[in-house]
């Protein structure tokens, strides 16, 4: 059922269910007139034919260790315990957590690495499922950022600036491209935490609309209480009672509208109707009773539990099926300053299968072509050890100069490993990719020229990529 059909269907159902009060008929007539003014994006967008319609961003919050997951550095076995040469560190500023450390001993990974698939991508033993789909992924090993602390680093990844106040990437897309579904928001956010340490905090600005109108901010789907804040009617108010309430409310608002020719009244009526539709569409979306057993085989048993990363991956697939433009997941807990082997293994166990399952599932349903999936954190981790040098408890500090993310689908070349790092995984040797470059590329895939999606604020045009950003054309099909 397409959305307008759904609206009509709903109304008819309601109408016939209500019986023949005069207002019911009036209500129906009004409802049919009041097509919700779903924001259809800016008229000049897309700037060119998009390769993808949707983006799912699997944000791994805290800074996953590229050295222990993707960026295979066999020489570290020999160099293990030696001091990181100054020629490599080159004055990289350190966080306050290791700035007072007297030595910076190189620490190899505790985990086995193998090459996978025809592409021969290196993936560590911690991510067997991801390794299993290596040929469908495109790895960027040379992501880099300027920030060295969580708050500014995550804010940069989500909004293109380290300081608060800019719109998030999803808000830009909701603003620029609008929504494909009148019953759901264009930009949905879900957050989860791992079974290990709680992890770093998140902030609503990460899915905020900054200086764009607040209707473009991400709508957080929650696992506790209402899936969307204030979605459910209070106890004592059934759906039919709410319908009754809305019909009468609308009738009164109509009188007001006849008095004042203020288009805001029309909009308000339409938004109450959309709210009413969301009250049905969102619970439908979150109803898993029809999901076959095979789904849980694919995503893992965790996907049965609300609030888990696996469940969110499954919801992400459903959202994309419904035409939601941008789905943003955050999974916390990747900040392994200490006890990395144990903690990182837990994080991977919580996320690996579901991340891979999402890509496979989209592929199976023919959605991967039109959906760009991104996996990655806000920075990587240092080759040198933080804390004591022991194989089981070593830790790593934040590292901004190179780290690994992967992309899948949405017109990105599969089976590619992009960018080289030095033998310490400390510096990019070729093809560095800045956060702005990644943003430019994501926008490009959905048909947006990142230099032209702008909004005027404080007298100048702002954009997601600030004054930077190059599309990484080598990665595109």
């Amino acid at each position, binding site marked *: 059922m397409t959305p307008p059909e759904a609206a009509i269907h709903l109304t008819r159902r309601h109408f016939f269910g209500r019986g023949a*009060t005069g207002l019911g008929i009036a209500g129906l007539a009004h409802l049919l007139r009041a097509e919700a003014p779903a924001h259809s994006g800016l008229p000049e967008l897309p700037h060119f034919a998009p390769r993808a319609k949707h983006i799912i961003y699997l944000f791994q919050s805290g800074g996953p260790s590229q050295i222990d997951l993707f960026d295979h550095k066999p020489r570290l076995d020999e160099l293990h315990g030696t001091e990181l040469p100054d020629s490599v560190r080159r004055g990289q500023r350190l966080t*306050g*957590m290791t700035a*007072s450390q007297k030595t910076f001993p190189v620490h190899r990974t505790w985990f086995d690495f193998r090459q996978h698939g025809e592409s021969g991508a290196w993936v560590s033993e911690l991510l067997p499922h991801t390794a299993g789909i290596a040929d469908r992924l495109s790895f960027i090993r040379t992501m880099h950022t300027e920030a060295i*602390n*969580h708050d500014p680093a995550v804010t940069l990844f989500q909004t293109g600036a380290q*300081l*608060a106040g800019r719109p998030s990437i999803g808000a830009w897309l909701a603003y620029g491209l609008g929504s494909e579904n009148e019953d759901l928001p264009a930009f949905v956010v879900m957050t989860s935490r791992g079974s290990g340490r709680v*992890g*770093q*905090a998140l*902030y*609503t600005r990460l899915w905020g609309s900054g200086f*764009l*109108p*607040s209707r473009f*901010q991400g709508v957080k789907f*929650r696992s506790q*209480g209402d899936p*969307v*804040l*204030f*979605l*459910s*009617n*209070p*106890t*004592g*108010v059934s759906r*039919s*009672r709410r319908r*009754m*309430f809305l019909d*009468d*409310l609308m009738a*009164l*608002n109509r*009188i*007001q*509208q006849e008095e*004042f*020719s203020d*288009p*805001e009244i029309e*909009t308000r009526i339409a*938004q*109450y109707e*959309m*709210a009413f539709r*969301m*009250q049905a569409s969102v619970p439908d979306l979150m109803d898993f009773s029809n999901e076959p057993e095979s789904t849980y085989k694919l995503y893992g048993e965790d996907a049965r539990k609300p609030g888990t990363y696996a469940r969110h991956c499954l919801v992400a697939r459903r959202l994309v099926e419904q035409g939601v433009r941008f789905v943003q997941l955050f999974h916390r807990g990747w900040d392994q300053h*200490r006890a990395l082997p144990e903690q990182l293994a837990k994080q991977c166990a919580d996320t690996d299968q579901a991340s891979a399952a999402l890509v496979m599932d989209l592929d199976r349903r023919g959605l991967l072509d039109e959906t760009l999936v991104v996996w990655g954190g806000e920075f990587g981790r240092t080759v040198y050890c933080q*804390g*004591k040098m022991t194989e089981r*408890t070593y830790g790593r500090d*934040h590292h901004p100069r190179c780290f690994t993310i992967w992309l899948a689908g949405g017109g990105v070349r599969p089976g590619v490993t992009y960018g080289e790092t030095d033998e310490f995984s400390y510096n990019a040797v070729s093809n560095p990719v800045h956060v702005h470059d990644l943003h430019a590329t994501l926008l490009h895939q959905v048909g947006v020229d990142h*230099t032209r999606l702008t909004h005027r604020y*404080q*007298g*100048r045009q702002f954009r997601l990529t600030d004054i930077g950003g190059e599309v990484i054309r080598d990665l595109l099909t």
Partner: protein
Amino acid sequence: MPGLYTGTALFRLAMSWAVLAAGLPLLAVDFDRDVRPVLSENCYTCHGPDASQRQAGLRLDQEDQARHVAGEVLARVSSDDPSRRMPPAYLGHDRLSDRDISSLREWVEAGAPWSAHWAFVPPDPGNPPAVKWEGRVRNAIDRFVFRRLEQEGLAPARDADRRTLIRRLSLDLTGLPPEVAAVHAFVGDPAPDAYERLADRLLRSDRFGERLASRWLDAARYADTQGYQNDAPVQMWRWRDWVIESFNSNKPFDEFIVEQIAGDLLPEPTLEQLIATGFNRNHRSNSELGIVDEEYRVEYVVDRVETMSTVFLGLTVGCARCHDHKYDPISQREFYQLFAYFNNVPERGRVLRPFNSPPLIPAPTRGEARELAELDGHIAEATSEFRASREAASNQFAQWERSLAASGGSTDWYPRRGLAARYGFEGGLGDGVASGQIRYAEGRAGRALALQGEGHVEVRGIGDFDYNDRFSLGARVMPSSPHGVIVSRSEAFNTDDENAGRGVTLVLEDGRPRLKLIGRMDDWIIASAREPIPLRRWSHVAATYDGSRLAAGVTFYVDGLPVESVADLDYSNGGIRTTEPFRIGEGADAGSGFAGAIDDVVVYTRELGIDEARMLAVSENLGEIARLRPDSRTEGQALKLEHAFADMHGPRRLRTAWARLGQFRRAREALARRVSTVMIMAEMNPGRNTFILERGAYDKPGEQVLPSIPGIFDSSPESTPRDRLGLARWLVDPANPLTARVTVNRFWEMLFGSALVRTPENLGTQGERPTHPQLLDWLALEFIESGWDVKSVLKTIVTSSTYRQESNGSQDSVRRDPQNWLLSRAPRFRLPAEAVRDQALLLAGLLHERIGGPSVKTYQPEGLWFDIAAGGGYQRGRGNDLYRRSLYTYWRRTIGPPSMLNFDSATRETCTVRTERTNTPLQALNLMNDVTFVEAGRKFGERLYLEGGETIDDRLAHGFEMATARRPNAQEAEILRGAFERQLRAFRADPDAAKALLDQGESPAREGIPRIELAALSMTAGMILNLDETLTKQ
């Protein structure tokens, strides 16, 4: 959405369309209005103020050059040859619009006249013009507005009716709708000045200050938390209350500004003037582990500059942080010259958490100040009584002294209050347990513990201090080695655990007493006495801590005298408590033990004072002291004798006086501890040097600069302000072309929904031009001349005919002036977030009106904090806390209150002087389902039942009138009644649903109302709360 994507060009287009439609001649080209914006938008990036980007050495923002090349500019922009055309095609620019080119052509043909950007020129309104509708003119505002309407061939709308007016005025001036009785009184008031008196009454209401403060809090980015990462609380509500009070007392706005920017630099500043400077400490602040201190300290200074420029000057000075401003005449150097004014705060980049970081002051409320003064009075009175009774007891004292000296007994005295434990080792270990070999040695007096670097005495249940507790530790020691733990309650240091060393340790290192307060990772305070104590001799060592989370809060005493100390590490941002036992003579690590003798170990749960520390060091008991000749006693010995006498051995009168004095002192201390602090501004002396930061980076200092205002303003060396106070006075100098305009512009926006300059955050060259420049200037001058009288300027605006128009404009008005830029009718727009909630609470009779106080935690969906933040969840308040006005709602910056954010409130992360107004389904869900509004509907329903009359029609009409200030018409009344009856039928069929609905919210239901009927009435009342008209000011 209408009005969202408007720009200058579109505006001018619309204006000229209106002009054409009216058959009037187009206005002649005006450089500042028509040409500069074209140059600014299209040329200044490469030919403007930014020296680093300037091409061909050409700048078109300066008169000489621009006029010189005007013809060439016209030729280049209109060229058909893409390789010659400007702006360059190879950079992706299209040809300028025909309209822009024709503006340039007209300008060149007129001889390229030049004028400065309007906002940098002092206001000059000219004379208010005569207009066609003289009879409608109430004050000069109307002349400027009507004149413009006349030019555009439009007419002003009629005066709105009184019901509309009183609701509009009440919402605008108090943020709340009028009571029905007030509506009726106003409607029935025959006096010609009824409206003016209404305005006066509302301006006098205490609600006025709350209403005005709401907007100011957005601008001043006021919140209750720090705003980064784990987002710990701060306490700035005393500053918020100062703002409310300032508006209510109509503090002249120039003073309001000066006190906020530089209250601390005024001569002998009052407490209130110091609190005012909290304005510049409201910025976000970072306590995250591992940040680079200077990076964030610089951010705070930048935030102050940006906020000051936006709020007072309406300039985007922040653009010049990394490079010269691209459009406005503000260079990067000038940015750092402004930065220099705010760069001398004795602060750190990594702030404490939770709560406030220095500089701060205790900021007692009026009530608290009164209580403190009362206690001071009691203390003074008790002190003189104590002195008098001591004098009266001099014979008894001498007698007591003699008997003590004669007795040869071992009576002793030491401070007992807050004493958690004392170990003299005379009778053994008390509740302590020996670990390892424990021996005894001869002490200074009696027996002492003798240790050889191993072994300790373990005590359970004492020394469990956190980093914000006050405590004192002391011992008499005779070390044989310069290293060793005296007492500790801490975890092992020698591990790789992130809690290594966690707890409290008093240790000798290199012979120097050192106190360590250690939390997680680098959350460490370490303070040391500067000088070592001698080996193999007895010394008394004590360390006290005031709970301030600062190394400066540690004081060391050696032999009873305070000694100089140094801060070795000074960050404590997390708890330090541990489950380790208290140990005497050793820490948790092997090899940490003390070598030598330890005696007279004390643990106090409070910070000892200087006299107490001195007495503690005295090893002689009372008899021994008494046997000394008075003039050969040390000061400590004499004090000890005096205290013992007053405390225990003197006559009853003296002991009573002593006890009373102690009680009052303790009461004062306890009260002072409860008083909230507020962060304020202060100056370091000498101040920091300020450097231009290359690309804005904290670690790339360039050339040094001195404080100065930008050269566009008069910044000759004589007139340039030297310090913040000078800067503040410059802001409010009548010669400053911006401050008054910016301020009245925002007042206008508050009342009309959009400002005269539609970009109130930017009056620079890239901002919009005022729709009514003369009106803006007239208001600005009026404001200055009134002595910056806020109430007066607001009254002038609201008593104008322009303000009093109907919002239901003529067809002509709506069609030809759809955005109401010309003010051909009154505006109609949704209430701000605070008012949406406050109004619902008021109508429900739930609103608890009380000015000020700590922020309150209202209803919030479960788990909102827990989902994404570290640390604990949200502890909702109870009772009245749930029903305060929304400006008192606790504001966590990283997770703002959802029912505020849903209605377009500012996020309070950075300065916000304009927010968009949107209309979303989430607002509908919020209003229908948030327990705040469901409960409000229920209580509103109750009120209608009890107060609305006998019939359902009366009750519903009353509710409608309460919400909208008008009676429903027949059609509306019928719908209301139908709605009620449908709900009633449905609830009759499902009585459980009625009960469930009436259970919503914490406030108890009134007895004696039939439940089914009440439920139906509650639903209908809830519907009234959701009416577009209820949510809208019109």
